[in-house]
């Protein structure tokens, strides 16, 4: 079923034994990068391109004035309903722009609280550091691959094509900043100094046209998120990349496990290039999607309904009219792992509270599913109809129940030790167990 649809995507640009050369105009997938050749268009506009995204090709030169305005907007707590919740409330600059969870969130669903007490985001919030490298949505197919695969797009389900488009989501989400409609947001902004500031960049119409105002807000926020302060590359791992500053033995073992296709195999999705001095090659994501079936977070309000499931990419696929969108149900975009060690909850639904659990889940999801699904059905957060989409192939998630896992407990510790080296310098004190001097 899904294979047929994937094949359909694969052959759109191929006739007989040969694929047509890229001829249509290219598409720029990351700012400043050369246009990628387009060999086909999937659904209502998603390009299938001739080359995988190369983050080192991106060039970020946002208008400094616009980036500064975007930064003001980012921290402006007036832009919520009720007021008091800025973008920074969920993307805490003191925590690598990842959420610092409120006591209510920590005691409850472990996802950020919105502007209204008791209302929580439907998903966990990512760190916004390095988000500028996430490319626009596209498909790519290696010539050895049987099918094309989707990459890029913002949010865990890729529903936004750009950062500017993404900004609309939390501003209007009733569980987040709760601004209702673009019109109500406009009326709120019109009373602030932000309106004329935005008008200077985008024209007077932004002060009267709600949609134009929302787009302007998005562009300003995008400029800020594309600024260099959002990509510090100041971790100990970056020192290792740039200067070969040695990792501690346990961290080095963790790095080896991270790369080892028979062990952690993490780099098959969380890509890195540990011999490359340019840290952009080590963003720890390939921007692709995977269905790993993390356990259901029963503390999420929406999950009180047993019939509710967060199906991830397939909701976007339907809207984008990709062939057989159900094949993408359960797929979530692979997040980068930089600064993962300062997070307070893990996975797209916040189900885990420790990094060690998040790592250990991969190791024993298949060998000891009872440990993770706790009496519930295995893969309990994916509808039965879509369980065929779950990745049961990739090491270490491919072993049969009851068999030995790919890694030992000590090796899990090694992996965690390595992941802690990905923490940018300002945040190392936030890592659990960090020396007091770093806090």
């Amino acid at each position: 079923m899904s294979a047929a649809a994937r094949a359909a995507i694969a052959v759109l640009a191929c006739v007989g034994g040969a694929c047509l050369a890229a001829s249509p105009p290219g598409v720029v997938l990351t700012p400043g990068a050369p246009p990628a050749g387009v060999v086909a268009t999937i659904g209502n506009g998603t390009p299938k391109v001739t080359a995988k995204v190369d983050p080192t090709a991106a060039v970020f030169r946002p208008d400094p004035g616009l980036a500064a305005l975007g930064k003001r907007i980012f921290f402006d707590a007036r832009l919520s309903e009720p007021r008091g919740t800025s973008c920074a409330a969920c993307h805490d600059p003191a925590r690598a722009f990842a959420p610092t969870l409120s006591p209510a969130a920590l005691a409850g669903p472990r996802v950020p609280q919105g502007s209204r007490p008791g209302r929580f985001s439907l998903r966990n919030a990512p760190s916004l550091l390095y988000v500028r490298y996430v490319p626009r949505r596209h498909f790519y197919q290696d010539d050895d691959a049987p099918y094309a695969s989707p990459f890029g797009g913002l949010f865990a389900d890729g529903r936004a094509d750009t950062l500017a488009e993404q900004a609309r989501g939390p501003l209007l989400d009733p569980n987040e900043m709760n601004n209702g409609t673009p019109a109500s947001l406009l009326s709120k902004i019109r009373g602030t100094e932000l309106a004329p500031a935005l008008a200077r960049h985008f024209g007077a119409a932004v002060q009267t046209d709600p949609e134009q105002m929302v787009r302007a807000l998005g562009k300003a926020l995008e400029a800020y998120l594309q600024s260099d302060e959002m990509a510090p590359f100041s971790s100990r791992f970056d020192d290792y990349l740039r200067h070969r500053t040695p990792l501690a033995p346990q961290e080095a073992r963790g790095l080896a496990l991270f790369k080892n296709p028979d062990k952690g195999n993490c780099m098959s999705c969380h890509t890195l290039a540990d011999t490359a001095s340019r840290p952009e090659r080590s963003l720890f994501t390939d921007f692709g999607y995977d269905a790993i079936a993390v356990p259901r977070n029963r503390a999420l309000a929406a999950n009180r309904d047993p019939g509710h499931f967060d199906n991830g990419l397939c909701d976007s696929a339907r809207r984008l009219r990709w062939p057989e969108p159900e094949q993408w149900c359960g797929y979530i975009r692979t997040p980068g792992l930089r600064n993962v060690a300062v997070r307070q909850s893990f996975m797209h639904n916040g189900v885990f509270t420790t990094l060690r659990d998040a790592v250990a889940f991969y190791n024993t999801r298949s060998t000891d599913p009872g440990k993770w699904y706790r009496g519930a059905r295995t893969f309990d957060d994916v509808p039965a109809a879509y369980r065929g989409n779950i990745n049961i192939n990739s090491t270490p998630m491919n072993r049969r129940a009851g068999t030995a896992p790919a890694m030992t407990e000590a090796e899990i510790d090694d992996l965690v030790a390595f992941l802690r080296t990905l923490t940018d310098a300002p945040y190392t004190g936030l890592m659990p167990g960090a020396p007091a001097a770093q806090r």
Partner: protein
Amino acid sequence: MGNPKENRRAGAATRVGVGAILAVLATAAVLHGCGSDSTDAAAAPVAPATPAAPAAPVVPAGDAASASANLQAAWVEIGDSNQAIARVITSYVAPAAAAGSALPSNALCPLLTVDGVQQRMALRVGAGAMPLRTTASAAADSKPSDFPVSVCEATLPANAAAASVAGQTLPLPKAQPQRVLVLADTGCRLKKADNAYQPCSDGTAWPFAALAATAAGMNPDLVLHIGDYHYRENLCPPDIAGCQGTPWGYGWDTWQADLFKPAAALMAKAPWVVVRGNHEECARAGQGWFRFLDPRPYSDARSCNDPANDGNANYSEPYAVALGTGSQVIVFDSAKAGKTALPTNDPQFIAYQKQFQTVGWLAARPGMSTTLFTNHHPILAFAPVAGNNPAPGNLALQSVMSNANAQAYYPVGVHVALHGHVHDFQAINFASGHPATIVSGNGGDNLDVALPDPLPPGTIPAPGTVIDKITHHSSFGFVMMERNASPATGWTFKAYSVAGKLMATCVQTSNTLACDKTGFLAP
């Protein structure tokens, strides 16, 4: 026999006859090599070592072409008529030729010693820089293919007992090889379009050299490489140390780094049977394939130098290599096979259709108890896809095969199929009577994900097939075929890790395969 100085002192009683045979065979092997074929010197007498023994074809002191320093690679491969072809790659440049005079082209080639008789090898193709042609990469990421080495060859007599060149002993084919190494997909991936830069200098990340050493230590009698020797297609970015300094493109330097250097021990150990992979199609490493490995005589028309000839050079006639005692392996070139079923009027369909007729004839040879078929792309095996049912076998080949043989796919007489392309190991026994199928594509390039374990119900590689059992893994490794002890026929296939750990043993009988383990094999 490996020392050329010793060779000079060898007796001469039967040398002339053997030498003459060598000369004829070597001359026959030359087609359109660089330089002047009309001045071919393969049969030219070699200056005697001493005036007292003028008839002795011994190496003159200081035969420059035979200096071991010139020798970049030496091996023996089995040709399309079961002949053993000695090949060398030499960096030797004759001084006079360098000055522009027309020396006989074979003067570039070293002396080959067979059973004490020395004979100069024939030039297969001389050094040359090929102009830039269209490649699989953008023009900006391509470059002309430079081959500053010459390739020499000679067909060895079937009864040769010993052979050497430039001090290096050449392995000779055995009438009944007992151990056949099977490997594929061995190169180090440098591919800009995939943003994939395998750390070629890291023996863990690209373990082909270690794998070759382990396999060589098992003393194979024959090596079967099922394609994709070459992966270094694009420039390593300057900031990546792991592939820094690595050659790229399709010239000699890339072939040396991807194959001839890491595989040198294996080439010294046993003759090779070479199968062409999709990385050796004309727009990729096809030029090197024809210069170095293709068992047929070299010709401009099938050199991949001119894209206008790709339609011809991307296909090769199948042939069979005898493995002794009723066993043979049929070699098939699927380098350019696409991913989709072919309409019957497609030129590729027509080309493959004709070639599968040949496969049928070869498989029907009388006296064969075990016929193996080998090509690069799996036909009745899988391509794993994370989060989805495995993709089936190659649909282009299936469409041709089913047109000829319906859902039997293979012609009568094929018992086993051996493939690469998918970077894992698979051993499949069918309940539907199809040939047992083995994939051994885990030879060094980046691995694929594993197949799901167990396979989802009803998962099949092609309509009409029914899988009885499948054994698989996704670690680096290789397969060793061992001949079943008489009176049994057939082979036992053993899957090994890079370090030589035995992971599974599969005994073949006719078209069935019985493995001691099923499902996923943990490393």
